[in-house]
């Protein structure tokens, strides 16, 4: 057990902190999200006040993202130029989002409206990503049936091509993603996704990864690595902001990062064994848990925090989310390894794992 002088009375088993870092490291390394939707509620359950939970988690995410990005860059999954533009514009957008919500709240905006909007946004992202991923999977299966090689990734959305056709100066060439796009398109998308994450208080990864895939036309694996690089910048900025507000217990973040280092290796290296749709399906699962968490929070606010059942439900969602995501990732990687040994993947998983 370890006590933190910054928060008197809170004692947490060290191994539990390491384990939390480990699970969020796997999830973040694999689908390119920070993992705040898992760790922040877990820290609150362990006795951290909400502000300390958010600040400490953000600080740990900054370090964890460096570890995952280093590995992703070895795998060729990081588009540095795009990541930097996205990160800077996302930070500016997030700052704008936070200030805008403060401004609205000062004028009487109800918390319920924000929570409901956040729930709708996550549900929409989850639903649209799921629908598109299933269509992409179907197309990949058709290619296989036609005797053609299954590509590493496939998307059916035509939105990216439309946005790439905007040729407003200056145009930037992204060799890693093989995309030519206007600087302003990237900046607006980065700024808008940052604004949404700042406004709703949900992690940027949930919004940024699908935006990079569907709006910029990047392969899913590059979107994951690039988003993790962006998170280094955005969570680094958030670490400074939370530090200034006395919200960071640096030792807790330091302990968690050791677990995250191992988890991030499994998550990042796991991407080498899967195809784009697998990443997107896992993202859908994560967004679904995020939406469920927002729904419970909304119900809690609507009932004036009077129902104990909602408290239990939030814990089930959090621990269930961790367990489900880690099991699915490990299952996919295990399936890919098994398929490599056999020389072929089962027909239902051909569009998900790489067997050769």
């Amino acid at each position, binding site marked *: 057990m370890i006590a933190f002088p910054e928060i008197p009375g809170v004692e947490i088993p060290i191994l539990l902190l390491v384990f939390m870092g480990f699970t969020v490291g796997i999830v973040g390394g694999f689908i390119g999200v920070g993992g705040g939707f898992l760790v922040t509620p877990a820290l609150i359950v362990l006795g951290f006040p909400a502000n300390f939970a958010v600040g400490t988690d953000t600080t740990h995410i900054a370090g964890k993202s*460096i570890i995952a990005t280093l590995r992703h860059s070895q795998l060729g999954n990081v588009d540095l130029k795009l990541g930097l533009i996205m990160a800077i514009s996302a930070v500016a957008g997030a700052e704008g989002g936070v200030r805008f919500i403060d401004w609205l709240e000062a004028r009487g905006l109800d918390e319920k409206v924000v929570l409901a909007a956040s729930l709708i946004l996550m549900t929409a992202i989850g639903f649209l990503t799921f629908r598109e991923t299933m269509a992409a999977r179907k197309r990949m299966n058709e290619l296989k049936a036609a005797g053609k090689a299954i590509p*590493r990734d496939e998307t059916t959305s035509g939105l990216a091509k439309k946005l790439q056709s905007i040729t407003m100066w200056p145009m930037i060439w992204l060799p890693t993603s093989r995309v030519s796009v206007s600087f302003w398109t990237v900046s607006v998308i980065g700024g808008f996704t940052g604004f949404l994450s700042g406004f709703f208080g949900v992690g940027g990864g949930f919004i940024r990864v699908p935006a990079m895939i569907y709006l910029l036309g990047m392969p899913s694996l590059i979107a994951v690595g690039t988003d993790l690089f962006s998170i280094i910048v955005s969570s680094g900025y958030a670490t400074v902001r939370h530090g200034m507000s006395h919200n960071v217990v640096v030792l807790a973040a330091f302990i968690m990062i050791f677990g995250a280092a191992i988890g991030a290796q499994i998550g990042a290296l796991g991407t080498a064994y899967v195809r784009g749709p697998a990443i997107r399906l896992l993202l859908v699962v994560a967004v679904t848990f995020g939406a469920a968490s927002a729904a419970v929070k909304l119900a809690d606010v609507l009932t004036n925090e009077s129902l104990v059942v909602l408290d239990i439900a939030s814990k089930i969602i959090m621990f269930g989310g961790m367990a489900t995501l880690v099991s699915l990732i490990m299952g996919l990687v295990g399936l890919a390894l098994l398929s490599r040994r056999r020389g072929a993947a089962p027909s239902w998983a051909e569009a998900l794992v790489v067997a050769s």
Partner: protein
Amino acid sequence: MGKRTKAAIQAAILAALMGLLAWHTISWHIDGTHKELFDAIGNSTWDTAKGVFYNLGLMAATGVLLGMFSEKITDLFGYEVKKIDHFGDQEETPAVADLTARREAALAEQAAERAEEQVVEPVR
């Protein structure tokens, strides 16, 4: 020096640095320096910068050291990390074929020019 030996030495150096960083963090926690830094935030610009950038610096140093250490460990175990071929057969093949055709056309054009020069030269 073999690749694995090199990786082992680098991993040992990084592990030693990680050990030093862990020792520093634990000793500052025990002697109360972390709490002092935390409490001083907001007292003055210098105290705030010290407290805030210490957090950021510690995370960055830990992240970089652990990330590099993990890379060396996989090298040590002989696990080869290859760059993922994101585009595979989709675009590479037509692009290469196209380039080959263009190169062949350019070479044929050059050869035709040379032949033409050789024919013209004796007349001069």
